[in-house]
C-alpha cells in the first residue's frame, strides 16, 4: 500500500474512533500491535511489564487521538508512543539505559568509522563457513546481548524494514544518531560472530 493510501485509510479509521466507534479502534490495535510488540520485546525484558506498557500505549493513543495530525502514518505515531513509554519506564525505574553508550564515546566512533579494512583482517566469508540454522541461533543470542536501544533499531531497520526516516520519527533521535547506533550495532554483531567462529563455537 502506498503511503497516501495508508494515510487515507488512517484518516477514515481515526474519524470513526473520534465518532465513538470502538470497533474502529480495535482495528487500529490489530493493525499496529505487531510493530508495538517488536519494540516492547526488544526494550522490555519482563513479560508483565510488557503487558502493562502495551495496554498503556493504546490507552494513551486513544486519549490523544484527536491531537494526531497525520504527519506520519498512524502506525509510526503509535510506535513512537510505544518507544517513549519504554524510555519513560526506564526513567521511572531510574535504570541507566544509557550508561553503556550514550555517553557517546565519539573518539571511539571516529576510530571505528575511519578504520580501513585491513588486508590481514580475519574477515572470512560467513556463509561459506557457518551453517544457516546455527548462524541464525548465534545471531539471535548476540542480538539479545545488545543494549535495548540498539536491539530495537536493528529490529526496526532489518526485521521490520523501516526507513531511516520512519525510525527517526519513532525514536525522535536525529537521523545521524540512528545511523551511528545502527553502524555500531551491526559492527558489534559481525565482530562477535567472527569471534565466536575463531573460538570454535560455530
Amino acid at each position, binding site marked *: 500500500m502506498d503511503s497516501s493510501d495508508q494515510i487515507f485509510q488512517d484518516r477514515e479509521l481515526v474519524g470513526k474512533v473520534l465518532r465513538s466507534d470502538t470497533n474502529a479502534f480495535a482495528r487500529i490495535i490489530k493493525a499496529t*500491535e505487531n510493530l508495538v510488540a517488536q519494540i516492547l520485546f526488544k526494550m522490555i525484558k519482563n513479560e508483565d511489564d510488557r503487558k502493562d506498557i502495551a495496554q498503556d500505549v493504546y*490507552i494513551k493513543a486513544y486519549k490523544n487521538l484527536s491531537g494526531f495530525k497525520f504527519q506520519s502514518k498512524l502506525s509510526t505515531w503509535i510506535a513512537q508512543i510505544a518507544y517513549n513509554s519504554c524510555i519513560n519506564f526506564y526513567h521511572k525505574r531510574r535504570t541507566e539505559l544509557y550508561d553503556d553508550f550514550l555517553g557517546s564515546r565519539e573518539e571511539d566512533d571516529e576510530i571505528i568509522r575511519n578504520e580501513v*579494512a585491513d588486508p590481514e583482517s580475519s574477515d572470512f*566469508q560467513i556463509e561459506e563457513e557457518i551453517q544457516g540454522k546455527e548462524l541464525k541461533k548465534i*545471531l539471535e543470542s548476540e542480538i539479545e546481548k545488545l543494549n535495548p536501544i540498539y536491539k530495537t533499531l536493528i529490529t526496526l531497520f532489518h526485521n521490520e524494514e523501516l526507513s531511516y526516516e520512519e525510525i527517526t520519527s519513532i525514536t525522535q533521535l536525529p537521523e545521524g544518531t540512528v545511523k551511528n547506533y545502527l553502524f555500531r550495532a551491526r559492527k558489534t554483531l559481525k565482530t562477535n560472530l567472527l569471534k565466536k567462529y575463531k573460538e570454535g563455537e560455530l
Partner: protein
Amino acid sequence: MTNKHLSETEIQQFCFEQDTLGNSILEHVSKCELCSIKISNYKVIDEKLKNMKKESFNFDLSSMVLEQISADTSSSKFSMNVFFSFLFALMAIFIIGFAGLYVIDILKLQELFIDAFNPFIVVIALCLVIILFNYVGEVFSQHKKLIRLINTL
C-alpha cells in the same frame, strides 16, 4: 578507481545506503575480493535479520484495551452523574426552600411549622436521600458489570 580499501563505514554504506557512495568506491568493490567478503558478511547478517521470527503478544490486547476504555468512560460518566445530581439537588434546595418560605409567609402558616420542619431542612433531607439512592444504584450497576466481566474471563 581507488586502490584504498573501504572503511567500515563505507562497507556498511555500500550494503545499506549504496546511493550515498561515489563511483570510484563502487568500482573498487567490484574488483577487490577483501572488500567484497566484508560486504557479503553484512549482507548475510542482513538476510538473517530480515527472516528472523517477529515477536507478537500472547494475549488479546485489543479486548483488554477496549475493556479498559469502556471502564474509564463509565467511571467518568459515573462521576459526572454524581456531580450533576449534586448540582441539581443544590438548586432544588434553594428553589423549593425559598418557595416554601414564601408560601408560609403569604398564608401566614408560621405557627404550623416548628423549627425542625423548616422547608429548607425538609428539602435538604429529601435531596440527601435522592443522592444516596442514586449513588447506591450506580455502585450496584458497576458491581454487576464487574461480576459479568469476571465471569467472561
